[in-house]
């Protein structure tokens, strides 16, 4: 079930109505747990068992880690939790990738082997709920949080439907305390949540899905577009993926907000960043902070030698790339981002910081746009061919994207800058109730005609 699908509306209205009609906190939480599993089952009911199993393992591991005093025992249970989560992730998401890559490597070495790949369905949102679940046991191991005594609360934390399939990746210390207290109407920022949902919906259904048309055309293997169209499609893809993913996150945060829960903000105008370092503080914030807290800092962060800091950065971004997908294109995408971040740790960083804002934004836009090519292409040869066509070295064709897409790009850039400056959604949400209700109704009616018809799932569902 997608937030932008029609069936989400009756589903959410039912969940919302029953949630607020129930008086007891426990009853509400059981209801949300049931709704979350129904939400996931709408995609494939079999994988509810997978979430339940992951939940059970981490609940027990968390309780054991907290109960034990010995460092070795505590570590043993943490390892059990990590192995369980990474095992699920590795099997469902990476098995075929590693087997095929290993087979390819052996073949290159002259050892003929036939890789045995499996017909595995990738459970939707697996990368999100396993990372969320792992953060719980790691935080308990670090004595940053206490384990919850309620299995149902923990199950709800793992499966909470607004953020279940595409984030944001919520930490236990952020959501579990909210579950302890009965949500009050004063916890609901109704106007802000409705506005955020509308904004997210427009980003996803009205912008991202429309942009998929030219992007898919140019990125199709064998498409014969000219160099300018390749550049334009790359930039449009940057907008598409931003609107798609941040739109989903907005709707997730808004859905949770209407139920009285606060989720972390996942995007903060990333394309207005002044450096790649800043970009990653504004793009998919919940994931980058997860990698920072649980991988980068665990490796020593930047409180070590310069060489090790660079190594840590490279490791984190290779893993970050791999997290996004089981393909070398994603690894390469992570590597490129890692390389730029390493570059910024050298003299380039201070040099860039002293330059004009426009140059900084141009640098970020260019580097991110080029990296998106790796992210979007089918495989590395396709990406290399695409980049070559962009730079005039490769084989570009005679076709051209319609100039209207250039206008769309300019319009988006203008809107993005204007919105960062004026914060229009915040202004809308700040209206008094009656003008807000009228404005919301009018804006929703103006937005819906711009929905791109045709089913397009969220890009980040594949992760």
């Amino acid at each position: 079930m997608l937030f932008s699908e029609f069936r989400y509306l009756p589903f959410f209205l039912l969940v919302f109505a029953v949630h607020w009609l129930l008086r007891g906190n426990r009853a509400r939480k059981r209801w949300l747990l049931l709704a979350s599993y129904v939400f996931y089952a709408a995609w494939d009911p079999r994988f509810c068992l997978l979430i339940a199993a992951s939940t059970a393992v981490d609940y027990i591991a968390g309780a054991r880690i907290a109960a034990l005093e010995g460092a070795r025992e505590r570590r043993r249970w943490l390892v059990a939790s990590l192995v369980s989560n990474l095992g699920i992730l590795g099997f469902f998401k990476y098995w075929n990738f590693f087997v095929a890559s290993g087979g390819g490597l052996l073949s290159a070495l002259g050892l003929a082997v036939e890789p045995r790949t499996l017909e595995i369905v990738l459970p939707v949102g697996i990368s999100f709920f396993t990372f969320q679940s792992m953060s719980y046991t790691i935080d308990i191991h670090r004595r940053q949080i206490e384990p919850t005594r309620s299995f149902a609360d923990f199950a709800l934390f793992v499966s909470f439907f607004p953020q279940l399939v595409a984030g944001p990746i919520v930490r236990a210390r952020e959501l579990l305390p909210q579950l302890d207290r009965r949500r009050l109407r004063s916890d609901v920022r109704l106007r802000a949540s409705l506005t955020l949902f509308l904004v997210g919906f427009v980003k996803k259904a009205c912008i991202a899905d429309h942009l998929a048309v030219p992007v898919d055309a140019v990125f199709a293997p064998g498409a014969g577009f000219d160099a300018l169209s390749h550049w334009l499609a790359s930039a449009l893809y940057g907008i598409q993926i931003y609107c798609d993913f941040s739109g989903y996150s907005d709707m997730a945060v808004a859905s949770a907000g209407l139920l009285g829960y606060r989720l972390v903000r996942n995007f903060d105008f990333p394309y207005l960043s002044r450096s790649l370092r800043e970009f990653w503080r504004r793009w998919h914030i919940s994931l980058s902070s997860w990698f920072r807290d649980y991988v980068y800092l665990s490796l020593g962060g930047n409180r070590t030698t310069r060489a090790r800091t660079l190594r840590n950065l490279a490791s984190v971004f290779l893993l970050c790339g791999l997290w996004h997908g089981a393909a070398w294109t994603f690894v390469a995408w992570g590597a490129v981002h890692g390389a730029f971040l390493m570059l910024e740790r050298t003299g380039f960083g201070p040099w860039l910081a002293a330059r004009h804002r426009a140059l900084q934004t141009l640098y970020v836009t260019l580097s991110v746009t080029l990296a998106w090519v790796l992210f979007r292409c089918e495989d590395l040869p396709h990406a290399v061919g695409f980049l070559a066509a962009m730079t005039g070295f490769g084989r570009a064709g005679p076709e051209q994207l319609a100039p209207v897409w250039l206008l769309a790009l300019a319009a988006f850039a203008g809107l993005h800058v204007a919105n960062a400056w004026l914060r229009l959604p915040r202004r809308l949400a700040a209206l008094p109730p009656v003008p807000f209700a009228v404005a919301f109704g009018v804006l929703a009616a103006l937005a819906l005609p711009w929905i791109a018809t045709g089913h397009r799932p969220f890009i980040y569902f594949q992760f």
Partner: protein
Amino acid sequence: MRPRIPADRFASLAPQVSTPTLRLLALFGLAGLAFTATSSWIRTWVPLPDDFELAARMHELETSADPYDLVFLGPSTTRCAFDPRVIDEQLRRRGHPVHSLNLGLPGATSFELDHLVERIVAQPPPGLRWLVIELHPAEPSQLIRPANLFTDRAVYWHTPRQLGDVFAALLRPRPGQGLRLDRMALHLRHALWRFANVGQGDRIVARALGRDPIEAPDLRRGFAPEDCVEGPGMKAARERYLSQPEQVRRREMRLDRQDATPVPVERLNPGKLRRQIESLRGIGVEPVYVLTPILSPVPGIHSLHRERILPTLLAFDSPRRHPELYAPRNRWDDLHLNEMGAEIFSRRFAQGFAHWLDTGLER
């Protein structure tokens, strides 16, 4: 004695209806009103679907400098059977000069046609005197083909009134069929899409910018026999028709017997027809119902006519009375005539229509 359930057992399920809740509901209602008003205003800008030059033909009907006084409305069997040039010529010879237009729309059901009638009633075309409406066996479960789901053509006729009629048809008991809630949900979604103008932004802007010029229909004024012979589906239908002469014969015999088996009119939603007739007469247009020479009976129509619910019925659904229209050389398949058959049909129709104009009686 049964144990008593404690009074507070279900307390947590009791709704907390309070002043803030009512205020909230009022605000949602206000937002809904604003949404409805804006959507309704936007809908006035949504053009008709482009399928089969529908938008162009309706535009022609509504704005032509040479007004049309006779219009044919129906599905593909209308589109491919009524040749306005032949009909105008025949009627002129019989002392009834008319200017006619074919509004036949392949695949149209009675619900879609009813919506077009609603549109004609809402914006009466200047000079229109007679609306010839073909009656066709519409099966509610086949209203939208899977390939056409949520297309402009599938969405545009889902007005609240048509939705109500579809629900009524789906709720009418039929042997071997359940409530068909899935169908009702599907039509409800189509109605909501129409209500919210989903996906119509491009078309509205194109129209507002004048980038969607409505071409005048061709010289044949909406008559397009090629629509009924092109495409793999039509070719397969022709092969079926030609390869099963015995079955065709049996169906023809069944058609001739249909008058002998009256159908209770309550089953046929006569209220909908009455409403249609009254609304057309209200704008000074006389409805004329017609049965074209198809091989599938339209159950109960003759009963409706006998009970005077249908004021005028020109029926061509009898192979015995119209053998030429059922001769394979004049047909494409079991539903459609070929171009030669269309010419014969148009002459016959013009004769029957002129007779009715002269005498007030159907032949």
